[in-house]
Structure formats: C-alpha cells, structure tokens
C-alpha cells in the first residue's frame, strides 16, 4: 500500500485500518517528518466527497476537512466569520493558505494554531466519522493538549460545524509575532460579539498560544455582557490562561500583551 486518495469513506477506513498516515493539506505533515521520508502508507483525504466544500445547513455551516484557508478567505460568510478570515490571512503565507486546511490545523493541535481561537469563538464542533458511525465533539473538547486530540484509531475528522451565528454578530482576530508574514504567534486573540442597544451580547473571547490549548475567557465574557465600553483587562480576567516562557516571550509578557490586545480589539469593535 502506498499513497491512497480515495473518494469513498469506506476506502478511507480500510486505509486507516492498514495504518495509513492521514494527510490533508500537507503543510504540517511534511515538516513534522523531516527531510528524509521513508515511504509508508498515506491516506489523502482531500478527494473524499464528505470532506469537500463549505455548505450552509439548517443549523449553521459545514466546513469540509479539505477546505483550505484560501477557500475560507474567498467564501461569502457573515461578519461573525471575519475573525476566521483574518486568521486565514495570517496563516503562513499565500502558498500555505492555498493548501493548508482548517481541519488539518485543529488535528495538528499546535498550541499556536491560528485557526483555533476564531473557531472557538464561533463555537465550532468537530465531525468525526468511523466505520461505526459519526460523532460530534465541541472543538474545546476535541483538542486536549499540545499535539493531542480525542481522535481514536480508525476515526477521521471529516468536517467542522459552525452553529448559526447570532444575527449582527461581529468579530476580530489579532496575532502578535516578531515579524510580518510566515510567523508563529507569540499570542493571538479572537473576539466575537453582538452589539445591541443594551450593550454587547453573545461575547466570546478566545486566546491562543497562551497555554497547552487555546481557551475561552468565560468570566471576562460574562463581565462584558451588557456593557459597551472596552474595559481594563486584569490578571483575574486571564486566569484560564497558562502560557509558557519560551524564545518568543515569557509567560508574563504573553499575559501582558493579551490584555492589551483584548482592550484594543474591543475598542475597535465598539
């Protein structure tokens, strides 16, 4: 068995049973394996009918596992998706965006995955298929740690589901890095909210690269609900975060700048 690019799920499950390594866009698959790649069974999911396209459904949107960041940038989507589109433009470079997939991004489960904060803000769910059937997992439960997900042997992620977004919701995304383009985040923030005459509603704030997995800031979200002015973000708002110190910045620096980013983004959104 070599390189399998099936169009039917049943063939994909056969390949999984045979120990094939799953590849979608390939932008994480190749670098993770280094320069010398021994031939081994590979399952390319990009031709599976179940993995293709962005579709509006009764309860929201379905984004297939083969959908690339460029597809998202080009798609006509409500303004609640602006954060996801902004993140899409920050993924690597145009060359990467043209092949890298959203689902690949979440399955790779990097703490610095650009797609995760905006998808958390959108309340994304992960569609997992296996021979035994389909299950749906909230994204927040799907990624459990750096490079760790709840995906089991024989399972395949075939799509993301975004529930219907609140009418009038707006969103924004910011990524902090030490250079323009092709940069891994020091920290990133996605915010979604719905401005109403009685203040912000449906506030969702998700932060990436500040912990083993990206996190929502639920307490802050609640504190902001019903208000309209950008608040001072304090340490207690950031309790869910547990950033590491590495070459890109200390834990304290990450928390410090995340607070600034949130304040600025809220000011822009108000």
């Amino acid at each position, binding site marked *: *068995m*070599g*390189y*399998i*690019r*099936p*169009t*039917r799920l049943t*063939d994909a499950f056969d390949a999984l049973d045979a120990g094939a390594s799953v*590849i979608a*866009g*390939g*932008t994480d*698959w*190749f*670098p993770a*394996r*280094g*320069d*010398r*790649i*021994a*031939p*081994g*069974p*590979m399952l*390319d999911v*990009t*031709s599976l009918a179940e993995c293709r396209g962005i579709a509006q459904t009764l309860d929201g949107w379905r984004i297939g596992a083969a959908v690339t960041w*460029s597809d998202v940038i080009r798609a006509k989507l409500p303004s609640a998706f602006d954060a996801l589109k902004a993140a899409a*433009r920050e993924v*690597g*470079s*145009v*060359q*990467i965006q*043209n*092949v890298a997939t959203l689902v690949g991004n979440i399955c790779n489960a990097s703490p610095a995955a650009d797609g995760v904060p905006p998808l958390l803000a959108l309340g994304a769910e992960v569609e997992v298929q296996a021979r035994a059937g389909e299950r749906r997992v909230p994204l927040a439960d799907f990624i459990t740690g750096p490079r760790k997900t709840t995906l089991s042997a024989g399972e395949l992620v075939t799509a993301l589901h975004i529930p219907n977004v609140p009418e009038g919701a707006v969103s924004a995304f910011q990524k*902090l890095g*030490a*250079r*323009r*383009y*092709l*940069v*891994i985040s*020091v920290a990133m923030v996605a915010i979604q909210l719905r401005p109403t005459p009685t203040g912000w509603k449906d506030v969702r704030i998700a932060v990436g690269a500040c912990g083993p997995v990206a996190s929502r800031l639920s307490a802050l979200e609640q504190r902001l609900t019903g208000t309209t002015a950008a608040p001072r973000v304090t340490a207690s708002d950031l309790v869910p975060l547990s950033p590491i110190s590495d*070459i*890109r*910045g*200390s834990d304290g*620096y990450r928390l*410090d*700048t995340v607070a*600034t*980013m949130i304040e600025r983004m809220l000011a822009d959104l108000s």
Partner: protein
Amino acid sequence: MKDAGADQGAVTFSLNGEEVSSAPVAGERLSYTLREGLNAKDVKVGCNAGDCGACTVLVDGAPVCACLVPSQRADGAKIETLAGLRDTPEGRDLTESFANTQAAQCGICTPGMMVAAVALLRDVPQPSEAEVKDALGGVLCRCTGYRKIIEAVVGAGRLPKPDGDGAVGSSVRRVDAEIKGSGREVFGDDAAPANALAVAVIRSPFPHASFELGDLQSYAAQMGLAAVLTVQNVPGRNAFGVIPGFQDQPVFAEGVVRYRGEAVAAIVGEHELIARIDLGTFPISWTELPAVDSVAQATAPGATQLHEDREGNVMCRGFVNCGAADAALRDADVTVSGEFETSWVEHAYIEPEAGYADVVDGRVVVRACTQAPVMDQEQLAAILDRPLSDVRMIPTAAGGGFGSKLDISVQPYIALAALATGRPCRIAYTRTESMQATTKRHPAKMRVKIGATRDGMLQGMTFEGDFNTGAYSSWGPTVAIRVPVHASGPYILKDYTARSNGVFTHNPPAGAFRGFGVPQAAIAQECLFDELADAVGVDRLEFRIRNALTSGQPTVCGQVFEQGVGIKACLEALRPAWDEARADKVPGRGVGIAAGWYGCGNTGMGNPSTCKSGITADGQIVLHQGAMDIGQGANTVIAQIFAEALGVPLSKVSLVGADTDLTPDMGKTSASRQTFVSGNAARLSGEALRAAILRHANAEENAVLIIEGKTINADGRSFDLSRMAQNEDGYVFMAIETYDPPASPLDENGQGVPYAQFGYAAHLVEVDVDIKTGQVRPLRCVAAHDVGRAINPLLVEGQVHGGIAQGLGMALMEEYLPGRTENLHDYLIPTIGDIPPIETVIIEDPDAHGPYGAKGLGEHVLIPTAPAILNAIRDATGVALRRVPATPARVRAALKDAGYE
C-alpha cells in the same frame, strides 16, 4: 483525477504545458519529483518546510510550496514553474523589471519570487505595494532587502532599463541578469549528473559527547550503501580551518564531538536510497559529556577544555592601544558606560550548502557553492593528501554566502566519497543541517566606557569584548583582531584601549559573517555615543560630526589617511532627514542615527588578487573573472572596471570563471575586498592588455580602441587579429596582473597600517514603538555611504538595501539557539513586510588606492543599522536597550523596567 490505489503508480500532469509522467513513492514531495525526476532545476529547495518559498510553483494557477505537496496530488493538474512562466506576458514583464531594478542578486529566491509574482499579476495587473507584499510574503530573500523586488513587481512592464553604458560610474543591468532572472542559473545542487551517488553526513545530536562507531561494514551491506566514510578514509590532514595555526576542525570527529551538528561519518549510496534513509539507524553509541555554553562557563576555573593546546579555552586575543585611555577617562567631564550583549546570528542564505565531486583523469573535481575557490582547493589538497594540481574547484553559483561559505562545508565529504566509490557524488545540506553545522556570527559581551569634554569632544574610550567562538576557530581570530581596530568607530580618539577575547565553547563554530565582529562592537559604541551626546547637551548628529575622523588625522591604530575619509560627508548627508524627524513629535515614534567604518581586505597583511585577460584571434575579449559573485555583483563590477581600463564597451567583454584551472586566484569574496583588490587587479590587467595592443599598433596612449570582428582599430591604425600568433591559451594578446593592497602588520599595541582603505557609512532609521506590546516597526531608513567611486550605483543600492535588511534582522529578531532555532520558522529573518523604504545617499570621496577611487561596500552597510534602530527606540521611549535582538518581549520588559505601564 484518479481514484484510490495510486500505489507507486504513475502520475501524469502538465508541466509548463507539456504532459509528463512520474512514479513517485508515498511521501515524495512535488519539489523532489520536479527536480530529480523531471529535471526542473529552476524549482529551488531552501528548507523543505514551507518556510522560505523558494520552491513556489503554480498548481492549477495557485502558488504553493512544492516541498509541501505530495507528488501524487499533481496527477491531472497543471503545474507551472518559472521555466514555463518566463515566456508568458507577465513572466516577460517581470524578467525585464527584475533585470532593470537588479531585483535578483544571488538569484536563488528569484524563481520563487517570480512565480508568486506571476500569480499576482494575473489577478491584479497593476498591484499596489501592499498587494505585492501580501503576495510575496511567503518567499524569503536574504540578499536584496526586498525593496527592489517590490519595485520590480509594482512596476512590471513599465520600468526603463538603467541608462548607463557600462562605463565606470554608470548603472547597467547585471551582466548575469538574464541567467538569474530566468531560473537558468546553476547552483550547488543543480550541477550533478543524473547518475551521481548521494552523500549524507552523520552528525552529533549533543554539544559535547564521546562516541563509538558500530559495525559499519555490516551496516553498509544491510542498507545497500556504496560506502561509509569516517576518519579512516581521510588520507591527509583530518583538520581544516582558514587561518594558519588555527586549523583545528576535523573533517570527521575522532572519538569526541564538540558541538551539536559536528560530523562523525558519512554514508554514500544511490540518490533514491539516501533521500529516504533514516539516519537514526546508523550504528553509533553516544555518551553525552558536560558542555560549556558561554564565555563565562568556558573561562571559569576548572572548566572543561575544548582543545588541549588552548589554555583556559582562549583561542586568541586582540589589542589596540593609543594614548592613555584610563587617565583620559578620569579627566573627562562626562563618561558613560555599559555592558552590551549580542546573540548567535545565522547567515540564512536561501541556498543550503551543496555540490558534487568527481574523479576525472585521476584528479578530484569539486563543483560546489563557495566564496573562496582557491582556499577550498588548498584545504582539500591537504585533507586528501594530494598536490594542489590534483584538485580542481569549479564553483557553482552561490545562493548567498555572507561569510559562511568562506569555510569549507560539503567539499571534503563529496571529494572523499567520489574517491571511495569512483563515481560522481553529490550532497545538499538540509536546512537544519546547514544551520547546525556551519558557522555563525559571534555572540559578544562588551563592556565599554567612553568620555567627553563639556564641549562635546571625545576624551578616552575603553572597550573589552568577549566573543564566543564556538568549538573551532574558523574566522574567529580575524574577528578578535578586527574588533579592536574598529571599535572606536570612525572618530578621532587619541586615548583608546580595546581588548577582545575569542573563547571556545561547545557551540557551532563562529566564523565570518558580514562585518567580522564590527557590527557587534558598533552597537556598543554608537549607542553610548547617544548617551554621551545627551549628557553633554550636544545634538547627537552634531556630536558625531564634531568628532568624526578626517583625512590627515590618525586612526586609533595611528594610521593617517591623506585623502578619502568620507565619514563627515556621510553624517552631514543625514542632516535634512534628521532635522525633519526630530521635529516630528508623534508619540512612540523615534529617530536614531549611527555610523560605521570598515577596513577593506585582510588586516595588516597582504591579500593579493591576480587577474588574467586576453583577446582571441577572432576578436573575443575574455576576462578571467575569478572573484566569486555571491550575489553582490562582482561579475558586473569587475567587468566594468576591466572594460574601462581596456577602453572598450562592457558589452564586448565575455567572462570565464571561476575555475581553479582557468582563473588565477582573485582571492576570497570577503572583507569587502573584491571591488577594491580584485577590481584593481582587473584594472591592471585591462591596462596591460591595452598597453600591449597600443604597442603593437604603435598608437598613442589615449588612442580609441575599436574591436570589430577580427580587427582592432586603434586611432585609425587597424590590424587583423587572426593573423597573429596565438599563445597556448589561445590568445593573441594576454595580460596577467596582480594587485596586493599595501598594509603592514600591527605592532604589540595594534599600531600600524591595518588596511589600505576604509569605507564609511552613516544610517538614520525612524521607528514606531508600540509601548504596550514592545513591537518596533521601522518606518524609513536613510543610508549614506562613502564608496569612493560608485562603479555601478544601482549595485551600490542593492548592497545597501541587503545590508540594512540583515542589520534590521540582527537588531530586532535574529537569535540562533543551538537545538532550538534550527529552521527558518523558529529562526526569524526579515520578510518582505519588515523592510521600510530605504533612501540611499552615495558619497564619493575617492580613495588613493581603489580602482577609479572605489572602496569596498558589502560589510559596511550592516554595521550602523542595528545601533541606529536601538538609538531610535531610545529616542522614542527614553529606554536604552543593551541586548539584541530587541524582540517585542525584550523591548516590553525594558519599558516596564523603566516604569512604563
């Protein structure tokens, strides 16, 4: 589109309009299939990780990194590379505009840049600068500083040719513009024949370890290898190094390794096999040993010794002293002092080291990317224990060098492999291997004190710098010696003491990198100058002008130049931009200036270049151009100088070389010496050739030479070349001339004549500092350079832009950490989005020795940029940074320490 089961089956696709087939294995990258299977060598590989964009191709019209595309996915697709796109309307426009702006320097990133740009122009025929940046943000360039590339794409199809005629002082296209812009340039990994075996080097995963090799014979048999090479296969000296007395780096380590990435063995086999072999299977057992990482650790009592004959781990020291610095500082009205720290910096050329070797008629022939073909030849001869004449170096094009390709890298491995197997043997370092194994810029810790009088005149300076030279000497001694000579900056300092220490640690060898330690020293000196100027209440630019070195004044080495000290003019050229920026009171915005100088050529010793030229019986004018063009433009500059001296148009000159069989030694491409030293050799060669022709024609010295076909006409006296006797080289006229710059060894106080010439520079950088995040965004640069005489002003601009980009990277983002930033996504170099507009001001204060007054330039540019940026940050915030890179995290931490909220 085929269905499942393409198990090693053929894929068929359109490559540049032709239907092609290949049978890739699972895991094969499209870049590999294109280059190795389909010979599409215009697709370059720089990182195999999507970090550099050199392999950008269009798949069904969309730009992608071919290194990240499984080859099977190409099935049924339309693949376009530069080789096909160069003949499309957009490709033709870009080829022209890249040539007209000199947007290709070394040319290794050019295919990726142009392919990405074609995709943009198809969508947006007249893109804005912002659109160009977004479209090209995924392709890294290390030479150009990107501004010329932006100009070329924004102006594609609308930019005029440079209007020069090729005479000295005129801007013309590079003589190699066509080959570099078309993807036809042959780089290190593009030259090998299809049947070449491949070599892979086994390297240490530890900074310090002992090791034992297992059963290599069985391993070779089991894996189907053609050979396994170790120290046992080195017939000559198992040590290399560029400086006599410091040749301490083994080709293959013997029993102990001293840095992570050090070579212990190499395997040789069929290319397909080596491309996929897991090097972790190599039979070797390691015992990790305690390592010393820093100068402080290496010089602590009882520290592990790296080399038996280097007590205290000290490689060597440098020293310059004039006057009485301590007394002067004691008497100074004001003194400032500081301790400064810089990081390991990686050259990050986009072309990893590569080449191939073959045994031809009993001689070893090596084709590889290099900055120093003759030094490579000499070192190979010693390693192989063969006479020099048994080794031939034919450099390929070098996809960037910046100092690191002055040392040998791949050369001994492919040469030994070819000798062991009798077959051509090739290698291309992986990106990680290139970063682990080859040299770096020295990290420095510098303690500096400078004094001034109340009226703003310098009074005394002391400098002490520790330079972490890694495990082996490489160019470390040069850095140690150069730094004290330059650490004063281009200023009058009558009382000065500077010491440098080069210290061994268990790190990659620190060697030559654009500036040889001077950029590090300039950071300390130029940042303290701002503090000193403020302390005495003198405008920072005025302070520098007041103290600037002038012709007739001694340098800190006691050298007096009677002419050509152009630093004051450089500084004065910044005045309008300085006054304008100082008047600008935008919060968080600041402006900084800094100056620099750099002595061209080797320090205190000769470094000759020899240039050969000739005219054939059929009227061809041939210049043997052995000065390696690593992107800086030596092919063009040397040819312009030669044509001027001979008195013919540049277009009449054809080039041969470099090749140790064909081109005499024009020395190494380092120390900003090629325009000056090899330029002079070319000038002398051109003049001698001209004199021979004029003698033959019995014409006046200032006669006009016209060479048409086989006829030379000198002021109306014409003669037929085809009737003349040819020498054994096939020339009817030939000239071989040597130039060696006058310099003399320094005495025990560093006094003497270190260089025949210096070049001078002053930069201004304006930045915005985001107080809350620590991000620093450069807004504009003004760069004034005294180049003596700009042989080709457009090439001068290219060097200025590229040097500023590297200086900006060093100032703001570049930090190599062995084991942690060994790739181009953790080690950051500037992208097209990071370089602000650059205004180049060319100052021409002619040098007494330079060809037509010209001075060297390459290294000078990098020197003032980083301190100018740090000074701009201080101007914006009041906070003086003492460590580079000034990453957002470090800047923010310094701001908070200073009381910013």
